[in-house]
């Protein structure tokens, strides 16, 4: 178990560097530079700017310097927000994304898992069909459609909730609902499928034969096995939710990481893009690791060799 975890942690480093390398290459290939503006720069000034940021060096040297700093966890200063370091910007914008992401995660988990369990227990009932139809709808409607529809109805039609912006609990409801929708739908379907399979297995029959109450059978024996597909799905999903969701943050003007990330790409703000990408990839890998470890606790059949 320990060697497994150690090996996985060691793997995170080269993986993150690989992701950073690919991202760096993509930014370099993209047309336009961070200093482009509508005013044409005189060649001498452009040369000065390039020299200041080391862009006059050969590419392999620039790459080496970048990798060296990134390996130290130092992404340098943003090229757009002068005097602000990338780490500072990430930590400043993370709380907004994380608040919405965590709330959406737990809401999606509660709604999805409970709807999935009930649907599985009352298979082919009206509730099952209703819940699965709703889940199908939730899965099929992308959040860039769901968000504006919610805004249109609840904010601009009924004037109950603010249409956008950060501030107060009322401002959280719409973005969280938009985010949670797709995840809740997916989790509900996964839970239902997992539970249906597990509840028919032999060890559940054994548990019932032992005379255990239906609640214990369901929660202690059934859920542990039935929820495994959900766990493997929600690990990376939580990382993605925490690190900011571009579309929802855009729709609701939330100053989170996703919004900043898009802005950074549009500005060709190389250090900031690299910083956010590295942060996001490490987060996803860590959550994947946590998911893999938790399998062992959830399902006694899984062993780490």
């Amino acid at each position, binding site marked *: 178990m320990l060697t497994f975890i150690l090996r996985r942690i060691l793997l995170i480093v080269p993986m993150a560097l690989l992701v950073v390398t690919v991202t760096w290459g993509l930014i370099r290939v993209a047309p336009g*530079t961070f200093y482009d503006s509508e005013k044409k720069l005189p060649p001498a000034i452009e040369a000065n700017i390039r020299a200041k940021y080391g862009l006059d060096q050969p590419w392999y040297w620039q790459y080496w310097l970048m990798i060296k700093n990134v390996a130290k966890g130092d992404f340098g200063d943003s090229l757009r927000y002068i005097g602000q370091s990338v780490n500072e910007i990430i930590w400043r914008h993370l709380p907004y994304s994380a608040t919405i992401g965590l709330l959406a995660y737990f809401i999606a988990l509660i709604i999805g898992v409970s709807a999935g369990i009930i649907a599985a227990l009352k298979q082919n009932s009206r509730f099952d069909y209703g819940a699965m139809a709703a889940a199908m709808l939730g899965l099929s409607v992308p959040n860039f459609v769901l968000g504006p529809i919610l805004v249109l109805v609840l904010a601009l039609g009924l004037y109950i909730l603010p249409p956008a912006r950060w501030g107060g609990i009322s401002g959280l409801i719409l973005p969280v609902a938009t985010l949670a929708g797709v995840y809740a739908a997916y989790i509900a379907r996964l839970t239902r499928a997992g539970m249906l399979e597990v509840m028919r297995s032999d060890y559940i029959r054994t548990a019932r034969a032992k005379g255990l109450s239906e609640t214990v059978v369901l929660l202690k024996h059934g859920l542990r096995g039935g929820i495994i597909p959900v766990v493997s799905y929600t690990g990376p999903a939580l990382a993605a939710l925490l690190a900011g969701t571009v579309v929802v943050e855009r729709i609701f003007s939330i100053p989170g990481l996703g919004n900043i990330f898009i802005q950074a790409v549009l500005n060709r703000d190389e250090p900031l893009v690299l910083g956010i990408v590295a942060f996001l990839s490490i987060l996803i890998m860590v959550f994947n690791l946590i998911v893999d470890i938790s399998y062992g606790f959830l399902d006694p059949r899984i062993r780490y060799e």
Partner: protein
Amino acid sequence: MDNQKVREAFALAIDRDDYVKLRRTYKPLVDFVPFGIYPKYEEARDKVYTAELKKQGSSLDEWKARKFNAEKARQLMTEAGFPVQKSGSGWSCPSFSVDHVSITYNTAESNKSTAEFVQAQWKQNLGITVPLKNMEFKTFLPLLNRVDYEGFGRRGWVGDYMDPYTFLYLFYSPQNSGATGWWDPKFDRMLDEANNTVDEQVRYEKLAAAELYMMQKQIVVPLGVPGTSWLKKPYVKGLYPNPGTLHPWKFVYIERDPAKWDTDVENLLTVKDPIVQQQLAAIVKTQQDFVKSKANEKAAE
């Protein structure tokens, strides 16, 4: 696009009054330096244009009528060798190939509606359907500066300072920021000469002559001047709308007393704020004191 008559025809074939209805907060523009910012320059421009256009057998009214003239546009196209024919209820211009002409703009909803409007106008009035191209801003900028687009590129400009030169210098020097590839040493000389003139009004007149010279080449197709909407809380004082939307933040302050809040929005421009006036007077006084002390020093020597 190298043919001036074609350029003029495309410029004339856009109904700017309709464009303004589409964009709502716009006003139609036929010149390069927008109106409403430099009233003294506008006076000088009207004077110079009247005289200059009269010499050319035209008039200021005719110049201002360039907001839209489909008839003239079709006539110019025909003169340029691309006859516009009547076809059904519209027009067609089969000899003009749009293979190397397009309207290129940076992706944005507002630019899209403008480009589609212009496209529709040219289709209706000239029978030419120019394709639209859009791209992300940072991809668009280098392309624009390299003059790599074909036909038309979208451009907007906001003045950096309160002088018409902030617009006119866009075509100054071969390495200009005009993004059209146009440069004319005569235009440079006209600007230089104007800037070497001390008298403000005479300088404006010379700049206006240069603007007319440039506009008559029709290197740009002006569309409109946008308005700026802004909201201000009544307790924020010392902040006034102005043509450059340049705000002297050092004069802006928060008023705690509700009785002194700005409620008279209509007269925000004309009402003077006593605190700002006081600060202004103090600044002017330091300047005057400085001038006085310099004069005294000189006298002592």
